[in-house]
């Protein structure tokens, strides 16, 4: 697995991003889910084809300044500032779950900054008839069962991992909780923060990817996103739940590559 380099990028006096960077080619920004950024199989394979920039959400990893970011709007502006610092006038943005919501907000707020949008099982919409369960009131093992289909897979085992060493265990728990704290700031108590009134502004070509057996955000949400985003297509992947990017990595990568090629075609025209 290629080791990404880690860079600290200060965007203003309060907020710094830790960004993991790997690969070569067209730049792609990846925004992680509420479990925090982990350099996993998906990112590894993605960086075989693109130059991947994966920032940690403020308040997670070595990214700082969460307490000075008052709301979602502040957060979105932080990401534009980060794009500036990275020299990205406009970028392909891939976001998973919470990161998918942030990616969609980025595309809706300033249409010039997101070249193409890939939203993998994003949060951000809320359907009364299909309420997303309260991810902040679940035991870890209950949440894990909703996130991943094959509970025997290495990914599922990794999520259950508890170190024997007490210091390591404490620090791992703190890291997990900090990921949740940062996510909760933008999702509490119901993950519906107004995207529905902005989503129509997304003009970028959009690929929506969903695990068919998503236990957290059911596929019906994928259909809703597709209905509301003008230039969008929905790919549903078999044998995968919410962590579809690590559960069916090859298929997800292949959909993303096909989709990114269409942008080249569109640009050439």
């Amino acid at each position: 697995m290629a080791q990404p380099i880690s860079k600290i990028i200060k965007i203003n006096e309060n907020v710094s991003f830790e960004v993991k960077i790997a690969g070569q080619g067209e730049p792609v920004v990846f925004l992680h889910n509420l479990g925090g950024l982990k350099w996993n199989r998906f990112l590894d394979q993605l960086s075989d084809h693109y130059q991947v920039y994966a920032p940690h959400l403020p308040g997670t990893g070595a990214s700082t300044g969460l307490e000075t970011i008052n709301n979602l709007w502040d957060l979105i502006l932080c990401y534009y500032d980060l794009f500036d610092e990275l020299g990205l006038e406009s970028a392909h943005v891939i976001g998973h779950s919470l990161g998918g919501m942030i990616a969609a907000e980025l595309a809706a707020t300033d249409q010039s900054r997101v070249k193409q949008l890939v939203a993998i099982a994003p949060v951000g919409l809320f359907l009364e008839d299909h309420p997303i369960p309260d991810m902040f009131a679940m035991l870890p093992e209950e949440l894990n069962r909703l996130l991943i289909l094959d509970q025997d897979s290495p990914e599922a085992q990794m999520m259950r991992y508890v170190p024997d060493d007490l210091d390591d265990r404490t620090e791992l728990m703190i890291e997990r909780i900090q990921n949740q704290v940062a996510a909760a700031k933008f999702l509490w108590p119901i993950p519906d923060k107004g995207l529905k009134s902005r989503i129509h502004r997304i003009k970028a070509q959009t690929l929506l990817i969903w695990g068919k057996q998503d236990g957290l955000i059911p596929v019906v949400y994928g259909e809703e996103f597709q209905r509301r985003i003008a230039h969008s297509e929905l790919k549903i992947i078999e044998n995968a739940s919410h962590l579809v990017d690590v559960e069916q990595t090859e298929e997800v990568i292949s959909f993303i590559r096909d989709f990114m090629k269409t942008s080249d075609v569109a640009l050439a025209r």
Partner: protein
Amino acid sequence: MKFIAFHFMPYRELPSDFEEKYPSVWVTPPKTLFNPELGHRMYHDYLDELEYAIDLGFDGVGVNEHHSNAYGMMPSPNLMASILSRKIRNSDKTSLLILGNSLAAYNPPIRVAEEMAMLDVLSGGKLIAGFPVGTSMDGNYAYGINPAELRERYYEAHDLIMKAWKSDEVFMWNGKYNQLRYVNPWPRTAQRPHPPVWIPGGGSVETYDFCIENQYSFSFLSYFGHKYANKVLGPFWERNDELGGDRNPYKTGICQFIFVSETDERAQIEYEEHIRYFFSKCMHTDRRFAEAPGYRTVKSLRAGLRSQFDGTKKRPGDMLKDGTMTWQDLIDEGFIIAGSPTTVRDRLRDVLGSIRAGNVVALLHAGSMPHWLTRKNMQMFAEEVMPYVKDIHSEWDDSQYWPKGISEEKVQETLTQP
């Protein structure tokens, strides 16, 4: 010593299989279990009990705030306090303790400044204003407050309320969470510049400093009694000494279940069932709601997790859950102080000799206790225990932490046409 008769106002008639059948007494207890006819009776029994405590000459009667909670049926403690204020105004002994209003839950928070000022005026300057952050279950889960904002909202609300009480002028508030062009609550408090402030809290250094610097009384309100309280009050006093605060014992309070009967044996016969109701049903909470992410600071979290993992902190709740605690264990662990008047007196003297706390929030009602038994407990405690331990700390001046009351009411002249 000061003793406050405190009430949670629990629902007394939860089904016997409640803790097996339902996941939590808090946040999600089924509303269908609440019978308003029984609730009517309970509320009035409980108010009678607190009014009786005023007759008995307790230093205070106390109420608090919980939401979606079957053991604490006071989403608005101020409503109960307003009823009690009518009797308190005629008492020369008893103050009114609201412990308190969860500041972050009030929008705008000057609602607290207003209502507490009303209560202070109604009671004749006898109000003690309690300002808790509130639990995660109340604030984050039942009231939906973003855990990332809870503490900031709390501190901003505190600053706003205190300024509203202290200021003689109409002022403007341009806060992070509250924008008010005209802050000018009417009425103003009877006590000037404001009622004594008490902070019920857990064990964070931030809270200690907040209390010590502002001269607020710090109360550790655990249901598990004096032994656990001492683990928090010990560090409080250390911190107080570091900051050079005086050692006035009225700066701290503890919470304690106390049950008095004619003999030690009788105490067990009369009270055990109701105490077990409290610990098995009223403490039956869903650990999914234990703590929203962000409710505690990382610093507090790290300290808590470490002691949880290495087993140095055996949590009292866990001891209860395994169901093996005997009556004697409950006494030995300090969860309850119970027995004959002599036993309770001796025990209290012991405890108050080793814990530096001038205020005891006495829990004289537990779980399913019927009205008659609560009255008996209150009376026996007030008449046969309280007078024998009141002298402890009597050399200290309590006036920073306790109301003085306003001058006696002038007798109204008869309103007749001349």
